[in-house]
């Protein structure tokens, strides 16, 4: 396989098998934070280099059961921490639309593999936008399902109250087909909800009410991106939908609430990487802390260590009330704002990302990188479904239209994206 974009960390082309089912013979790529039995799984980190899971994630079992041909594991930001796939320990993935630009992150490898036509579909994960961002930057479709609809068993955890596995593809139909396969109850995930997805996309949206939050078209958003997205929303109105202006005041605190929550959860979830049960060998002659620190300093990249430390600090005595407790209140406010708006509209629309894909190396300051997640994180805080679908270009680069829906209304989100896709293709 010619992988000029560095989309894959491991390929299994020589040994790939497939069977009968909904995905019979379809080439599917799996993000490298999802456990695949017998296939190296690294989360794009040196601390898991050489780790071969002894079991399949639940979604991987489901893919195999439906005959998918799993052709490889895709590149990502290390442990899901990033917006560009530049935080991979094994080099960045390039955007197939412009190899001088990032593909987005953290599921950049999955997005690039689909956009470049290397695979028809891919699985990604979305904690703060990590499916929707690369889908928008690479010009493909990506869905973050409602929290709980897709099992997280076998997903190597980064922030377990926020993350979801989700489908990516070149069309809404393909994304829907993949969602059909991976959604459903799993007793091995304590947050799994029994809401199977058995839906064929329908383009009928007459009478649909679409909320347009002013915060999604505010000063932080590139005016050219806003213009393209507004044009796309106009096409949806022509199909019989009406737009309703609305506001999400809690969005002002959403990004801070997200980064406090995810770093706190990460500081706990990544404590397991000690080089003892898996990972690079520790020096067992050293004392515990000396050996543990040595392995982790060498094995974790800078951004991962930064987020673990931020989370450790935010949870520490004296600071817990200021950061973590306040973040949970802010999170509840975001949920309530969405619930309030959804009592009057059916879906909410806006840009997926505030800009087009950045150039490689452009965002070197961590805080400015975090700020680009501003339009995606509210969805994860609230646990609602959201899709990104390509809606035009700025400077030759794709722009994503984001459609957000009520909890467990993933089907409607798919339908709105499908209706739009049908009129523009």
């Amino acid at each position, binding site marked *: 396989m010619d992988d000029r974009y560095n989309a894959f960390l491991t390929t299994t082309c020589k040994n790939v098998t497939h069977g009968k089912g909904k995905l019979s013979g379809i080439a599917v790529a799996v993000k490298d934070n999802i456990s695949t039995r017998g296939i190296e799984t690294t989360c794009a980190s040196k601390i898991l280099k050489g780790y071969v899971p002894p079991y399949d994630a639940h979604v991987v079992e489901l893919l195999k059961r439906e005959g998918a041909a799993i052709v490889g594991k895709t590149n990502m930001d290390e442990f899901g921490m990033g917006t560009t796939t530049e935080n991979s320990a094994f080099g960045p993935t390039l955007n197939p639309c412009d190899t001088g630009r990032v593909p987005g992150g953290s599921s950049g490898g999955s997005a690039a593999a689909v956009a470049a036509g290397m695979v028809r579909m891919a699985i990604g994960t979305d904690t703060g936008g990590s499916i929707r961002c690369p889908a928008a930057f690479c010009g493909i479709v990506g869905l973050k399902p409602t929290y709980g609809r897709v099992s997280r068993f076998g997903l190597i955890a980064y922030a377990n109250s926020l993350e979801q596995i989700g489908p990516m593809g070149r069309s809404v139909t393909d994304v829907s087909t993949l969602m059909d396969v991976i959604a459903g109850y799993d007793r091995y995930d304590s947050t799994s909800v029994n809401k199977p997805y058995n839906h064929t996309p329908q383009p009928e949206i007459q009478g649909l009410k679409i909320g347009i939050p002013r915060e999604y078209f505010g000063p932080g958003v590139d005016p050219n991106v806003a213009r393209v997205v507004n044009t796309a929303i106009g096409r949806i109105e022509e199909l019989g939908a009406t737009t309703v202006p609305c506001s999400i005041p809690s969005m002002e605190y959403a990004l801070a609430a997200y980064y406090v929550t995810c770093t706190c959860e990460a500081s706990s979830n990544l404590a397991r990487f000690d080089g*003892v049960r898996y990972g690079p060998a*520790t020096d067992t002659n*050293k004392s515990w802390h000396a050996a543990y620190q040595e392995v982790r300093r060498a094995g*974790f990249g800078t951004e991962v*260590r*930064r987020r673990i430390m931020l989370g450790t600090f935010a949870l520490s005595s004296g600071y817990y009330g200021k*950061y973590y407790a*306040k973040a949970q209140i802010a999170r509840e406010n975001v949920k309530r704002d969405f619930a309030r708006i959804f009592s009057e509209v059916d879906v909410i629309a806006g840009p997926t990302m505030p800009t087009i894909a950045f150039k490689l190396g452009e965002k070197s300051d*961590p805080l400015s990188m975090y700020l680009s997640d501003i339009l995606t994180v509210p969805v994860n805080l609230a646990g609602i479904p959201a899709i990104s679908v390509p809606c035009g270009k700025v400077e030759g680069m794709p722009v994503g239209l984001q459609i957000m829906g009520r909890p467990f209304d993933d089907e409607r989100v798919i339908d709105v994206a499908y209706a739009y896709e049908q009129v523009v293709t």
Partner: protein
Amino acid sequence: MVTEHEVTHIAELADVGINTGELGAFTHQFNAILEYFDILDQVRGEQAVTRDLCNVLREDVVEPSLSQEDVLRNAAHTEDGFIKAPRVM
């Protein structure tokens, strides 16, 4: 504002370590991010009430699971079916 000394201490608490060469830049970036988090001081509202999820914890029931061979396969140091770890004492 956290000092370089405090950042070193946090790195020790989290057992992630920090190289001397990166301490200055790291502390500067750390403080910029914490300053951004200060916006949460203004947040007013109520804590979440869990509505939909229920506790699925149960009494342990032994079921077939991974083999010992599978469990030990990725461990760097093993001995007689045990995983070897650095000294705790």
